[in-house]
Every structure is written in structure tokens, then in C-alpha cells.
């Protein structure tokens, strides 16, 4: 299942993140794509907040993976630097764990991504407005409906 959603403000992005947080389960995989500056880390920050994480969630570009301890652990992965690598065994340990994995630039490690996942592609419309394309594969199909309302 695939839907589109337009987000006009940061508040709307925060609300959208809260609706995703309602659907999380251990082992949840959320894949994010979109150009530099589209708002992938911003969405992750809101999601982390909605999950109850108190730490400041900062860009994981440099260390590739940052894990935040919580009732549901959040693994924040950024594969931006991994262009051309296809898969990474070290990251698979996090992705196939009982935590929640949010993976930015997941296309770069597509070989390490499970068959079922939720993907959100963030497109620039203008400085503030973003067009989200949300797609669920496998058991994530029903989640798309839950968060689109």
C-alpha cells in the first residue's frame, strides 16, 4: 500500500511522527529517503521524542549508527556515507534486533534491509512544505492506513 501526504509545518511533522510512534513494535524498520536537508533527521527527532527518549537525537552521519536506550531502543542509522557498499554486516546487528531502526539513505545498504519495512520518501515542495510518499511492505501495509488518517 502506498499513499502521499503533504506536510506544511514542523508541528504537522511532529504530529505525523506521533502517529507512527503509536504503531511501533520490537523489530520495527522505518526506511527514510530524500535529498540532503529534506527533513529525515528532523522526522527521526520527533519520532524519538514521541517514543519517550529524553536524549538529544543528533545526526548520526559521522558515526553511522547511534543507539538510544529506551523501553524500545531506537537505532538511528545514516547510510549517507555508505554509497556503493550495498550491505553492511555490522549494521544488520541493529536492524535485526528487538529495537526500532530508523534508516536514512537506506538505498545505500539495500542488501541489509529486510523484505518487510515501512518507507517514507521526503520530497521538497518549497522551503517549508514537504511531500511524503509512504509505503508499507509485508506486515507494514496495514500501518500505512493507520498513519494516513
Amino acid at each position, binding site marked *: 500500500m502506498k499513499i502521499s501526504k503533504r506536510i506544511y509545518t514542523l508541528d504537522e511533522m511532529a504530529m505525523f511522527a506521533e502517529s507512527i510512534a503509536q504503531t511501533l513494535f520490537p523489530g520495527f524498520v522505518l526506511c527514510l529517503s530524500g535529498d540532503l536537508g529534506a527533513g529525515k533527521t528532523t522526522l527521526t527527532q520527533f519520532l524519538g521524542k514521541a517514543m519517550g527518549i529524553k536524549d538529544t537525537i543528533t545526526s548520526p552521519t559521522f558515526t*553511522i549508527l547511534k543507539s538510544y536506550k529506551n523501553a524500545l531502543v531506537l537505532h538511528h542509522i545514516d547510510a549517507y556515507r555508505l554509497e556503493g557498499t550495498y550491505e553492511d554486516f555490522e549494521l544488520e546487528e541493529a536492524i535485526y534486533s528487538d529495537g526500532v531502526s530508523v534508516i536514512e539513505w537506506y538505498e545505500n545498504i539495500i542488501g541489509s534491509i529486510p523484505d518487510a519495512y515501512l518507507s517514507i520518501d521526503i520530497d521538497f515542495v518549497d522551503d517549508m512544505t514537504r511531500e511524503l510518499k509512504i509505503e508499507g511492505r509485508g506486515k507494514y501495509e496495514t500501518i500505512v492506513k493507520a498513519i494516513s488518517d
Partner: protein
Amino acid sequence: MIVLGFESSCDETSVSVTKDGQCVLSNVVLSQIDIHKAFGGVVPEIASREHVKGITVVLDQAMKEAGVRANDIDLVAVTQGPGLIGSLLTGINAAKAFAYANDIPIVGVHHIAGHIYANQIEQDLQFPLICLVVSGGHTELLYMKEHYHFEKLGETQDDAVGEAYDKVARVLGLGYPGGPIIDRLAVSGKATYKMPKVETKRAYDFSYSGLKSHVINTLNTLKMKGETIRKADMVRSFQEAAIEQLIEKSILAVDKHQAKMFVVAGGVAANSHLRKRVYEEFKDVVVSMPAMQYCTDNAAMMGIAGFYQYQRFGLESSMSLNGDSRLPLK
């Protein structure tokens, strides 16, 4: 006291021999930067493998250059985190093996403590001090009232300053690593593009995501209008805005805490514009910025930091020492 230092948190494999927390007897650094350039950044698996290949050679050379034998070493210090976990583990395992085989105490040291103590190589740290930590993964202000006592005043709420440099360089098609490339190109440009004033909730926090997005938005707008992008002017405008944010918050921290010394640490300490602005603005306190070879990752700084950590806390680590990709600085 002679310390054997190991560093392998990112893309440099390094081993050092230092004496009494100041004197560098040897500091051998093997860089993988040319290998990672092909990918536009560090690739964790490749990094781990290259560290494994290099570590024993680097260790042998560091011992030889310093003219020491295993039984001269009093302490082993190794980067425990933060960093890429596979890379960290190579250095940690080599350090543990050496310490175990030769029955020498070992301490796990925070990478940022190393960057701060790179300043101790040239002159004694004077307290209280304010330290600005700036690199590809960090942007933070610390207060130190004495040796090995770190109090975090503020940090980036999104991107690190070095990361913003890398990403701006990438969208402009300038290559990797972005810091030195932008720094060189900015010299020939003028700050003609308007950059946004960054607001953070807390006075000592930083934010670079907005500045990065602004550059990207400006580029998109110019492209749509079919206007030419003056790259040198763009990076000059970006660099001035990026560095001013560091300077402003540092001035505030130094004044409020009546610091005797202002210290800059981390890879971005090599930036020429930052160095110039620091010398212009901080005339009433002692200023310290590491020598160029100690700005980037190296084991000498880890050995120095390890010495002071050992002085203050003694042995907190043991053979159970493990890597931690998000180790907090305490």
C-alpha cells in the same frame, strides 16, 4: 611515566609513545582517507579491515621511533569511544593484547578527551578553561575547573559543524572531505549570499541543520532561475556564518565562567578562518589550539589524556574493557 597510546575510532590507525602527559616520543598515524575518498566518506567495514591490516605495523614503528621496549611501558591508553564500533574494537583488542601479554595496566579513554588534551602537548592547560570541541561528529562547549573534570555547557541539536561542511561541499560538487576544500576555496570568495541567523533554545547549544538547508534551498532556487552559482562566494558566506556561531557562543561561555584559558579541539580546529577569528576575539585569555598534526585523529593525544585520566581516577578499566560507539564524556 611512559604511556603507549592507541587510536582507531574512525579512519586513522595510530599508535604513540608519550612521557609524563606532555612529551611525544613517537606518534605514527596511518590514514585511510585516500581509500574512503572513493566512497565520499568512511565505510565501516572497510575501515575495520584496514585497521586490522595496519595496527601491528604502526605499533612496531611507534615503539622503534620512540626507542622503547615493552618493559619500558607503564600504562596503555586506548580510545574506547565514541566512533565506529568495528574500528574501535581493532584498537581496543590490540591494546588489550599488548597490556595482557606484558602485564601493564590499561585505561579506556574518551576520544574527545584526547582531542582536548592535544592542547597539553604545546602548553600546560590552565583552569578554569572553556573548550570548544569541533569536528565531523561533535560540536560542543565544555567547562573544565581542573584536570579531567568535564562539564558540558551545550552541544549541537542536530548536525555537527564538520558534517555541515562535508554536506555543503557535496551539494556544491566540491568533493570529500569538505572542511579543508571549503576553507581553501573560501579565501577567493566574498560573503555576498545572505545566511540565516541561527536561534537555539539554550545559549550554549548549536545548530547547523538550518544553515545546511538554507544553502541547499538557495542552490535550488538559483538553479531554477537559471542563475550561475558563485561557488567561492557561497562557501565564503557559509563559512563565515558557520564560524561566527562558534565564536559568539564561545565568547559568552568564556565571559560567564571567567575562564583563564580558551581551548579549541577537534578536526575543525585546523580551519584557517576559525583560527583567525579566535586570535582576533580572545585577547584577554590564554588561547590554545593544537598544532596542525594534532588537530586530526592521532594516538599521541590519547596517550596524554590517558595519563591525566590515570592520575585522577586510577584504573577504572580492565581486560573487560569494551568499545562504546556513543560513550558519554564524564
